[in-house]
């Protein structure tokens, strides 16, 4: 008689077609044209980016599009020293919350072409576009130093 079976493998494979929705589709198509689009809330007037078709605080649909600068400020960041599957990045690398000029919410993205030890809160950074134009956040390959003086803490402390 066999010993009690301890376990077995249960493979699951579910195929989905992801639909980005209206707002994200427009945003991503903008990226393919190297334009970063936010949406302004008709009530609070804040510019949300990436836009999601609704203002999360006012609960109203957002439609007005605002083109944002590709330059912004690092509000905070982290340096990553462990590898995540299929990423195959050189360690360490840095990810930052970036407040693009003209936006009121931050974008979490990669900072490169800067030694990680030099990355700091308040640093001004600029988007580096990928050669291939496609409707994807990958169109922004990463951000690099913009070569501008750091933004003062007071200018971004409400965006941490």
């Amino acid at each position: 008689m066999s010993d009690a079976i301890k376990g077995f493998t249960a493979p699951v494979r579910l195929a989905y077609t992801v639909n980005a929705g209206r707002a994200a589709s427009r945003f991503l198509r903008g990226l393919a044209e190297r334009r970063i689009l936010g949406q302004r809330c008709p009530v609070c007037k804040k510019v949300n980016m990436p836009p999601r078709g609704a203002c999360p605080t006012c609960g109203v649909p957002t439609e007005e599009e605002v083109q944002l600068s590709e330059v912004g400020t690092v509000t905070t960041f982290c340096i990553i020293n462990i590898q995540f599957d299929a990423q195959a990045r050189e360690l360490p690398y840095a990810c930052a919350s970036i407040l693009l000029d003209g936006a009121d919410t931050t974008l979490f993205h990669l900072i490169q072409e800067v030694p990680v030890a030099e990355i700091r809160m308040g640093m001004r950074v600029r988007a580096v576009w990928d050669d291939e134009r496609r409707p994807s956040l990958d169109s922004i390959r990463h951000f690099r130093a913009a070569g501008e003086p750091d933004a003062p803490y007071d200018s971004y402390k409400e965006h941490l």
Partner: protein
Amino acid sequence: MARDDENLTAPYVLEYKYRRSCGPVVGRFLAALKDGRLEGVRAADGRVIVPPTEYDEHGEPTGEPVALAPTGTVTAWSWVAAPRANHPLARPFAWALVKLDGADTALLHAVDAVEESRMKTGARVRARFAAADERVGHIRDLACFELLPGDAHE
């Protein structure tokens, strides 16, 4: 590529090999299947539950395993004319609740009846196991049931 006024869509596959741990009761039943045997488990009220669980429907713990014959009776069934990739059989078959002889609850599995017209409620069936060298301790070690000769509904 979608038109400009359409939403972007993209394929996404959620794929993962989950690892189930069985615990003692499911593990014992799967071991029996690996050996080509069927077992139930005795509930506190004396009934025999198949497939065995650690508990009866009131949450009370179950007791000893009970050896069962590989034969039973169909209590309900449906016909699958076009089997899907994850089904136990590639040719048309019946899903059936089979009450094994000596059991008090019915087990869901496939019946390889070939023709829908051969199936009926009350049909007598026998377990067909996968080949011994293919059995690993899995519910599919019980490949399916087949109609007992003479009981097919022609």
